[in-house]
């Protein structure tokens, strides 16, 4: 680690934010003009979406289970154990479903994108691609971006559903609640605004995962060690961004819908 003057450091950071913004902008707008790489979008959807299924199902399910257990203890004090369904579904749909899915996919795919593009960068494959007349942003970043946004949306729905199911299992098997009233409560608790909030978040998170992952990949410097560094940074930065943006989205949704 070399020490640089604060001025140079600030300049580097500003330049990085600028490069990131330009990359993100191009990645988004590339889809509105040809050539488009549909086959790559499908491949990425398969690897990001289908590949993340097991971890998303497991995370969602067990989070729902734990949520039911934890909330039941607190609710017992107020004699409101029957409200477990409300709590589980609200927490899952509005908050935990989107955020946990985002963090999981970030750990799995932001790192994957950073290391894949990073290796291509350090072995000059990105330059070779440009020399062969293909824009690497168009060919590599845009498909990953749209595939992540699209698939994260559905993965979040799955995580929500499995979370509620996990909560149901715990409520019925361990807490001795009535299954149909659990589901009835879960359903009743959710209003339109909650669902909109829960489904807006993955659109932002998908954008963050893909753009941050690809940005660190494409700006990799310094051989294999550099690839490792990019990968770590991609996961750290995208996870932190996800949590910060979660706060911002939640706040503005409360501003819009009043809950």
């Amino acid at each position: 680690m070399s020490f640089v003057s604060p001025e140079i450091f600030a300049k580097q950071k500003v330049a990085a934010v600028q490069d990131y913004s330009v990359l993100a902008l191009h990645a988004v707008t590339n889809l509105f003009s040809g050539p488009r790489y549909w086959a790559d979008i499908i491949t990425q959807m398969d690897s990001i979406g289908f590949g993340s299924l097991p971890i998303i199902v497991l995370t969602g399910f067990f989070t729902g289970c734990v949520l039911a257990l934890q909330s039941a203890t607190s609710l017992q004090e107020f004699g409101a154990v029957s409200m477990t369904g409300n709590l589980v579904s609200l927490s899952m749909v509005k908050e935990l479903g989107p955020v946990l899915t985002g963090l999981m996919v970030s750990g799995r795919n932001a790192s994957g994108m950073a290391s894949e593009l990073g290796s291509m960068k350090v072995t000059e494959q990105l330059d070779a691609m440009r020399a062969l007349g293909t824009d690497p942003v168009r060919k590599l970043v845009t498909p990953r971006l749209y595939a992540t946004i699209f698939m994260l949306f559905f993965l979040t729905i799955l995580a929500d559903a499995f979370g509620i199911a996990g909560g149901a299992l715990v409520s019925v098997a361990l807490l001795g609640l009535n299954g149909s009233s659990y589901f009835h409560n879960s359903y009743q608790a959710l209003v339109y605004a909650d669902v909109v909030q829960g489904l807006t978040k993955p659109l932002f998170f998908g954008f963050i995962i893909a753009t941050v992952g690809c940005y660190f990949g494409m700006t990799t410097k310094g051989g294999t060690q550099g690839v490792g560094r990019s990968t770590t940074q991609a996961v750290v930065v995208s996870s932190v961004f996800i949590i910060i943006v979660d706060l911002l989205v939640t706040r503005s949704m409360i501003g819009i819908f009043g809950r």
Partner: protein
Amino acid sequence: MPEATPNSMPHQLHTGAATFDAPVVVFKDVSITFDVKPVLQDLSFTVHPGETRIILGPAGCGKSVLMKLANGLMRPDSGSIHVFGQDVTRMRETDLYKLRSRIGMVFQESALFDSLSVEDNVAYRLHEEHVPEAEAHDRVLEALKFVELDQAIAKFPSELSGGMRRRVSIARAIITKPDLILYDSPTAGLDPITSTTIVELVIKQRDVTHTTSLLITHRLQDAFTLAMNRFNQSTGKMERIPNGGIDDSTKFLVLNEGKVVFDGTTMELVHTSDPWLKDYLG
């Protein structure tokens, strides 16, 4: 200075006609600095159609940078670079992609796509242009036969030797028959036999299709092989130009510490009086 021998007449005619055409590559006062280190300083030279320009110079003097500049992969700090009459230093990236379809490039480390097979690597440009699969396959075979690697078509780059990778990289660069080929150290780090095979390929490309090219090399021996041999189409092999003749379309550019120390023909290089150059040529 003995410019041409009778035996090199065909080449003489070729370049003679070509010099009236617009130059293919023109560097004018090009400078580039990385961090604080000036790598190229006020570099100027011109490459005419049909010319094979051999670029020599010690390691780290900026040869690879020069080649990336010529392809618009990097932009200089100052100066202008015209390729096919277009200024690559001021072009938008989208226009550069169009221009690059006329340029083939062989990277120093081959830079093959390691997750694609040899066939998909070589066919990359054809796939981008949506050439029908059957036709693309035939053209890949033809290009691989040219580099004598048609048996490796189904392999992956990691399964190939360094020399084979270079040749795949050459096949990938020439498959669309570009008007300009940039070879970055195609023979570096290879045994004499393999590097002769590659030099022979370059000579074949030069004498069969008369493509303009820039070629970086560390091996003076390869440079002189290029200058003193020609491709015999009837035998399919390269042969010495008789009576010590020299190929006229082959010219030299020698760099040192970011500056041009020599720009001229083989004969001028051999008979140089510059002490550093004499020392460098051994």
